[in-house]
């Protein structure tokens, strides 16, 4: 019975999401696009975290994707849609190669290497001006769908749904067992026959492809890239705060956290125009200290307690 209601609820939310442009104004739509982009980053970050690997590479891969899509269009004449797929592919390859090099050592080594990705690619882009446009960035001649807001919204929504579906697949198949085992105890995981390295490289590459596509979509809907804005630390800070607040190691948590903080973000921007990001830093610190299981975790343990007690 509960299952039944769950599906109806999901269908209603999905319908509301798809029809959003028809009952919301232009301003709300632009907020929704931003929130959905952050949703992709938050979910994909969590998907890798389920294996116990902490990535700070979201900004780097987002920026790589942004640049890849713009350059594919400008230099190779790819269509906007194709360039977004290309952005995903480039991010996938970069992450796979990096993963093969560094994922044999994990935890802090991996975390810090990913933190450096953004820095490194920013340097490459700034110093390879002839190809990338250098410090000033690059501008697209045209925005995707000629700037049609409804179609752009659906494009972003489609990417967010892809991320959600992948995340659910990660939770419902053998991947779930592999990632949870690796997170809990690598030695036991190995002895169960799990190829840790292979799983980590593949998951890192897949989640990076999502982040790269998010960058591609963003660049195509806004029409420009710059080394500073495309690799901004916002894309690390916000997704982590969102996923932590909602609750890590699952699909629902990042969704809840993204919606809550995404809406809050708009108010924050109005009240603290400079350095509103400090709030996310404080949220991250507070949650790690007082509520590491996030909203979903707290609610779930309340329910379990009620059932048991």
């Amino acid at each position, binding site marked *: 019975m509960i299952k039944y209601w769950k599906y109806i609820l999901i269908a209603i939310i999905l319908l509301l999401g798809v029809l959003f442009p028809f009952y919301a104004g232009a301003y709300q739509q632009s907020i929704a696009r931003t929130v959905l982009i952050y949703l992709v980053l938050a979910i994909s970050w969590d998907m890798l975290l389920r294996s116990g690997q902490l990535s700070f590479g979201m900004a780097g891969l987002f920026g790589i994707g942004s640049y890849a899509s713009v350059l594919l269009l400008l230099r190779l004449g790819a269509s906007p849609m194709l360039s977004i797929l290309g952005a995903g592919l480039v991010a996938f390859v970069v992450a796979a190669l990096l993963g093969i090099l*560094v994922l044999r050592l994990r935890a802090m080594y991996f975390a810090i290497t990913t933190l450096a990705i953004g*820095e490194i690619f920013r340097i490459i882009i700034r110093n390879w001006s002839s190809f990338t446009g250098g410090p000033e960035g690059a501008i697209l001649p045209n925005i995707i769908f000629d700037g049609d807001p409804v179609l752009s919204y659906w494009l972003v929504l489609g990417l967010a749904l892809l991320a959600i579906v992948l995340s659910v697949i990660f939770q419902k198949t053998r991947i779930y067992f592999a990632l949870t085992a690796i997170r809990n105890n690598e030695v036991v995981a190995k002895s169960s026959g799990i190829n840790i390295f292979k799983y980590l490289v593949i998951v890192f590459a897949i989640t990076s492809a999502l982040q790269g596509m998010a960058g591609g979509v963003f660049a195509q809907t806004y029409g420009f890239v710059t080394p500073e804005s495309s690799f901004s630390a916002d894309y690390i800070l916000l997704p982590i705060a969102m996923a932590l607040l909602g609750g890590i190691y699952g699909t629902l948590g990042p969704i809840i956290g993204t919606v809550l903080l995404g809406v809050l973000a708009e108010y924050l921007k109005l009240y603290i125009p400079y350095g509103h990001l400090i709030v996310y830093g404080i949220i991250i610190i507070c949650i790690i*200290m007082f509520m590491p299981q996030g909203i979903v975790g707290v609610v779930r343990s309340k329910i379990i307690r009620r059932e048991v007690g």
Partner: protein
Amino acid sequence: MAERILKRPLYIIVGLLSAAVIVLLLFWKPTVVVYGVQRAGLYAGIALPMALILGIVHIVNLAHGEFMITAAYITYFLCNSFGMSPFAALVPVVIVMFLLGMLIFKFTIKHTLKAPELNQLILTFGLAMVLTQGLNLIATSQPRKISLDFVTSSATVGETTFGTYGFIYDLAAVLILAGLLFFLRKTKFGKAAVAVGQNPRGARIIGIDVNKIYILVFSLAIALTGIMGVLFLTSQSIFPLAGGSYTMKSFCLVAMAGMGSLPGIVFASIGLGIAESFIMSFQGYGGWSNIVFFALIIIVILIKSFKGKR
């Protein structure tokens, strides 16, 4: 034994090779060596406290460079509002940073000491963001600089002229290293700290107050980043985001030196400093120098993972 015999010549070979490279460079591009060594001082001075925290408290402080920049900003305001010279500001800044380190440890890091490493990394990342954005909020993202005339002092040896002020970083790094080694080897408190670093549980059993050691060592390290922050301001312009790359470079050096080894950091810094300044000596390609540390991290990771194999 076999391992050790194998290892020693390796170190000797690497050492001799780098010495040869440095001597060659000294003839070919003497300023590369000079500026490289100056950079090395800056890097080592910042990385040493990070190694101290990692070696004893066992925490990777991802807010490390941000603490240094925070100190630089505090110095900036002291100089600007009270007309202090930066060197006079050294004492108050170090005290403030020590207290800041204590507060932050007490109210945040302490509570995640028993949590998984992941939580600690996320926490210190959050701290880094709070520091950066706090600076952004108070001081805006506009770069700040103070101008001091002695910073441009130079010397001429033979036909080459070079700036000499940068050697102040080497002086600072050497003093910090010597101070730390003395502290850890000769003082009672330092020896207790080493014991805690090697085996916290054992140290607790023999009656060492582990929590006190943690908080003091952490605060001491933050105070040391304060010294480097003051010096940093004297010769560079600062902006809130400037700390991040020093966090990453410090980690790179700590990893190269072998987690927690202090003297190794000096050699690693010289390597990084000279490599960077070598690339910077090519007109128009200087921007690429900031990639060197990343290549080094990857090499370290590869070497470590192959060593672990057998």
